[in-house]
């Protein structure tokens, strides 16, 4: 039965209006700059995506959602911490929404796949994470790495830990079994040689592991002087808790080599944090004017201190916008050229992007957690005992030629 009723007429009217209005929308879109935040809302990093979003939004809002006098349209997509979903969502945003600049996602393995999309679609891509391949073996002109090189991290952590604990030479490693874990493990072992470290065990666990008893049992059986974890987020929290439950900490030190800082540490009781040593890309007591201002605003807005996730998103966005300013252009290739070799005094102090590899050269932090009695408030978790910025030595650099556009 075919019968046109009032509802159908209304629908047709709406369609017609949409069709008529369309050219105007396209004209408006050509002026605005679309920036994509590829932040996970589901999957293993579901808890991190909203924090990334906070940081990125803050950096954009500081500029009044404008750059070079043009409005910024900030869109986000949920990649589900999956390579397939993330690449699909990124392509949809590029093709459908006209996004030419993207930041994220949070997982190294997923980001490597997204980086390929950036290369193919000729879109500027900023990323922060532990894989060295983005600024290493799979480097190209479109992707940039914000996090410290895993070598910088390993050197900062091992050198400074050994300075404080010269006798702790037998290490057991717990490593997340994906791109990030493998990169860092390699350099921890490499730097460890200089200190005569013996690695009595190294177990790999899948991303998203929550049952660590078996791993810790093996670690305990090796009777190490220290346990070092190369994992992140929920994995690191679950691992640290289990190591405490087994009675290993605080008797022996535990090192979180690449932590998100505040976000992970507040999930642990002060008792579990005793004798915990932490390497991180950002800690909120970083003493720079930009960091002080950012932390103040973040605390006012969200009632807690920012960890690595919002800070990385914030700083990456600022760096990208600095690229626009320097290039005085919103063309992808102009902004990329401007970012290559850019030097700013920003969130972490002096930061520079190596034009040969697209690696951000910046300090990495090493913390020692405070005992409960010394904490002034709930967020007074740790002291920054050292920072390090030794770049990846040339002989390890896998990015021989970053190529052309």
């Amino acid at each position, binding site marked *: 039965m075919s019968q046109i009723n009032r509802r159908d007429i209304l629908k047709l009217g709406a369609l017609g209006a949409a069709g008529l209005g369309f050219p105007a929308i396209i004209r408006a879109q050509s002026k605005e700059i679309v920036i994509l935040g590829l932040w996970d809302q589901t999957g293993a990093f579901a*808890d991190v995506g*909203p924090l990334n979003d906070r940081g990125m939004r803050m950096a954009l809002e500081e500029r009044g959602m404008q750059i070079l006098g043009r409005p910024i349209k900030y869109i986000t997509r949920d990649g589900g911490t999956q390579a397939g979903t993330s690449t699909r969502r990124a392509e949809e945003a590029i093709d459908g929404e006209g996004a030419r600049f993207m930041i994220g996602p949070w997982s190294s393995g997923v980001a490597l796949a997204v980086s390929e999309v950036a290369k193919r679609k000729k879109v500027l891509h900023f990323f922060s994470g532990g894989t060295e391949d983005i600024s290493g073996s799979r480097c190209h002109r479109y992707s940039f790495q914000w996090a410290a090189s895993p070598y910088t991290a390993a050197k900062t952590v091992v050198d400074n830990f050994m300075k404080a604990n010269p006798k702790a030479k037998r290490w057991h490693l717990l490593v997340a079994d994906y791109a990030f874990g493998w990169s860092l493990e390699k350099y921890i072992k490499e730097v460890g040689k200089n200190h005569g470290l013996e690695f009595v065990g190294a177990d790999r666990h899948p991303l998203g592991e*929550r049952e660590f008893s078996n791993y810790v049992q*093996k670690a*305990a059986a090796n009777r190490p002087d220290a346990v070092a974890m190369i994992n992140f987020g929920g994995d690191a*929290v679950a691992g640290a808790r289990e190591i405490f*439950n*087994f009675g290993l900490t605080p008797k022996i030190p535990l090192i979180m080599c690449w932590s998100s800082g505040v*976000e992970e540490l507040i*999930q642990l009781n002060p008792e579990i944090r005793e004798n915990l040593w932490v390497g991180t890309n950002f800690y909120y007591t970083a003493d720079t004017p930009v960091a002080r201002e950012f932390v103040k605003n973040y605390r006012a807005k969200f009632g807690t201190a920012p960890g690595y996730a919002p800070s990385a998103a914030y700083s990456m966005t600022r760096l990208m916008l600095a690229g626009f300013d320097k290039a005085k252009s919103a063309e992808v290739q102009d902004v990329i050229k401007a970012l290559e070799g850019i030097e700013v005094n920003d969130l972490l102090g002096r930061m520079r992007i190596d034009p040969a590899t697209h690696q951000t050269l910046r300090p990495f932090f090493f913390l020692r957690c405070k005992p409960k009695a010394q904490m002034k408030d709930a967020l007074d978790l740790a002291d920054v005992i050292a920072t390090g910025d030794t770049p990846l030595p040339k002989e390890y650099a896998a990015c021989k030629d970053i190529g052309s556009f």
Partner: protein
Amino acid sequence: MLYALMGLGLSLITGILNIPNFAHGALFAVGAYLLVTAVNAIGNFWLALLVAPLGVALLGLAIEYAGIRRLYAAGHDYQLLFTFGLSLIIAEGIILIWGPVGISQLPPPLLRGGVDLGFTFYPKYRLFVMVVAGLLVFLTWLFLEKTRYGAIMRAGIENKEMVSLLGIDIQRLFTVAFALGAYLAGIAGALTAPIRGLSPGMGVDMLGIAFVVVALGGLGNLLGAVAAGLIIGVAQALVAAYWTEASTVVIFAVMAAVLLVRPQGLFGIR
């Protein structure tokens, strides 16, 4: 042993109510969160461990009374949608009440640290959990096997029409079974809190395992659930000792292998 406890609760619900309870993981999570709240409120871990699962049982009672009761005749699709939707609501509710950031709960001071068993190290708290979970499984078994109401419940699993024809209030039986299942999920959650910590999504992992346990043991088979829980736990621990990376996969590998040989599960008849 915790897997057995989760599986037993889910099996009770699946068996008696004939409902796929996708909210079982969420009830597990609520048990853990209520424990932390109770510990903070009363400052005594042991008392909190008693109170928290009772809270979950009450929640189960409310869920059965307000929602599931209306869906017995509606078929599995609606029941699945309802319980799945409920699990999402509970998970979001947890975020609203307790926040999105994970929480740690320490074991009581008496049970902190590990013991050297000679051949291996083991945390005291885990030994305690093993004993308590074993005891709970035993008590549930006693209740089901040795009490009149337990016998009615088992009869309910076998043949609901017959039970109601005998003049027994089958509706009340359903409510009690759901609350008991919720209690077991809640106490499993409360016991797990110091081991695995708390996060809003903690129920999801456990739900998967609980369903594996139920499927492996045979749908609605209580003894099967206990046996399957133990098998899964032991398999996971053994594999982890020799091939750590495979310790998660083994859960599903065992299930696939058993179901290939015995599609009805280890002890199942259906």
